[in-house]
């Protein structure tokens, strides 16, 4: 073994500090909340409703993000066209946009007095103070996470695989569905995990765009805030937080498992 240099000790120290700092708050929550408290919290109607709403809205948002995002990412990854760099930057804008700003922006676009407000009203769809509005906010803030990963995964795809599919008679849709998407699946799953994590934690944009109506738009993070704001509500906020951590961890692990354990071949250049 090489002798320890000053730097490797320093790097080890930095790693310990970083990991401890990131884990400590999580440990603190579970130290403060007993399993029976979590069960009690779950039994409460508002908590159950908030969790169920979070699950439903994020699930619908993810279906929309993946269904529209996958072919869009495929096109953006493979086609070269004028203004492509601009489009790639534009779709990442929500990543750096403060959530509160995202909420305001959504109101300006789809709100009753927004530029598309009349058009939305004509379709009979109600967004503000409605569950559908929550989904819109979630899609807006989470889709860039999926798109980025999906584009990177499709860019890394060996173009010869798609050419091989074509010479075997597969048209554009078939090679996308049967060759490109399965081969890019690890990247797509990673993107889905990131997007879902972001959607589960969504707070600001939802609050401003859809409000915080219990059972309608009050997702788990909003419920935590409302408990926290209540007198003596800290312990129930803690319990709900613990449940949300467990739920997100379960979702992330589940998505990672989509990845499967099949080895994928890295084609030589």
């Amino acid at each position, binding site marked *: 073994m090489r002798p320890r240099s000053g730097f490797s000790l320093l790097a080890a120290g930095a790693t310990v500090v970083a990991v401890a700092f990131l884990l400590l708050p999580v440990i603190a929550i579970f130290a403060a909340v007993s399993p029976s408290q979590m069960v009690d919290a779950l039994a409460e109607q508002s908590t159950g409703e908030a969790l169920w709403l979070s699950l439903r809205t994020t699930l619908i948002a993810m279906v929309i993000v993946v269904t529209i995002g996958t072919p869009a990412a495929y096109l953006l990854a493979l086609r070269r066209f004028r203004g492509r760099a601009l489009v790639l930057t534009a779709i990442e804008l929500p990543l750096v946009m403060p959530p509160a700003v995202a909420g305001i922006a959504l109101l300006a676009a789809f709100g009753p007095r927004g530029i598309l407000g009349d058009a939305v009203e004509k379709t009979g769809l109600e967004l503000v103070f409605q569950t559908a509005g929550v989904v819109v906010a979630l899609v807006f803030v989470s889709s860039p996470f999926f798109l980025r990963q999906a584009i990177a995964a499709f860019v890394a795809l*060996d173009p*010869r*695989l798609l*050419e*091989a*599919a*074509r*010479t*075997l*008679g*597969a*048209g554009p849709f078939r090679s996308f569905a*049967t*060759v490109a998407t*399965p*081969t890019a*699946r690890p990247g797509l799953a990673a993107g889905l995990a990131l997007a879902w994590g972001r959607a589960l934690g969504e707070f600001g944009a939802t609050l401003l765009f859809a409000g915080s109506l219990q059972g309608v738009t009050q997702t788990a993070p909003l419920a935590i805030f409302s408990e926290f704001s209540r007198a003596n509500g800290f312990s129930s906020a803690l319990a709900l937080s613990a449940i949300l951590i467990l739920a997100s961890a379960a979702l992330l692990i589940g998505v990672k498992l989509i990845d499967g354990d*099949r*080895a*994928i*071949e890295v*084609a*030589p250049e």
Partner: protein
Amino acid sequence: MNGLAVAVEMPLREFALDLDLKIGAGDRLALAGPSGTGKTSVLRIVAGLLRPRCGRVALGGETWLDTGTGIELAAEKRRCAFVFQDYALFPRLSAWRNVAYGMRGARRERRQRALSLLERFGVAALANAYPASLSGGERQRVALARALAAEPRVLLLDEPLSALDPTSRRDALRELHSILAELRIPILLVTHVFDEAALLADQIAVIDRGRIVQSGAAAEISARPASGFVAEFAGAVVLRGEATKTADGLTVVRLRGGGELRSVDAATGPVAISVFPWEISLQPPGAERDDSMLNRLSGQVDSVTPVGNRVRVAVSVPQPLSAEITARSARAMRLRPGAHVIVAWKATATRLLSIGSCDSR
């Protein structure tokens, strides 16, 4: 019969691709030349994966591409199978699903047909394996099975053996030879190794910087190279014969058309024999026997071609072979067409390759 006709003109990075090829059904043409001479671009144009600035590709009476009239048939509609250099197997599909990819019909039936193709190529046991777990030789067979499963009208192979290690390359060469010999469609293959081209194809077109510099049968090109470049590239002489083992451990090969050779390589049955022209020495008919040169054949000089400071001497033994000697020796021996000579080389310089019994040439 449906022959393939290709004519292209297209600027590449450092030179222009400018060539004209015709391949009959059941014919095998090797486009041979060093790396970076535009060979793969030709395959891609035929397959429809690359559009040349000017060009025409037609199979029989059907035009696939004509830049003059704007006709362009999509790659997926050409039924033109392409075996890629690194095989490009779909990593998320098992071997049989790879093979079944280009087939039509019900799943069960496609699986049956895929399995029987894999069996024909000796890899039926790997039907459920994924490409990442296959060896180079196994991948090559799966790739070939996949290409043929789609019942292609043209077969294109890009350096079909270059992804293999030297030991499996030899077996793969023999198998590929017998598979290609059975097909009745135009076959265009690309290689940078002259003896591969000589063994797998019946016609070779030597390409250099986008142009065909010489085309013909392997023996013809080797015997009468049109330029120093072709001479350099068309290294090996290829002869054919029937091998039998002898008690002293050497293999004896009876050449087609007469003559007998010895080799240290083991083989029985029909073989291709390859030897480099610079390993062959020429002697006047009355010359004394050199005991270190076990192989001695008498023949007649067909042609004498200067290649730089050397000459290529084509000799019929009666199969054509070529020897490369210095211009000085050629002058001293007064070599000219029609002269009788003895060609000699060592048994250790005689490489044998078993080619199976289905050789139709």
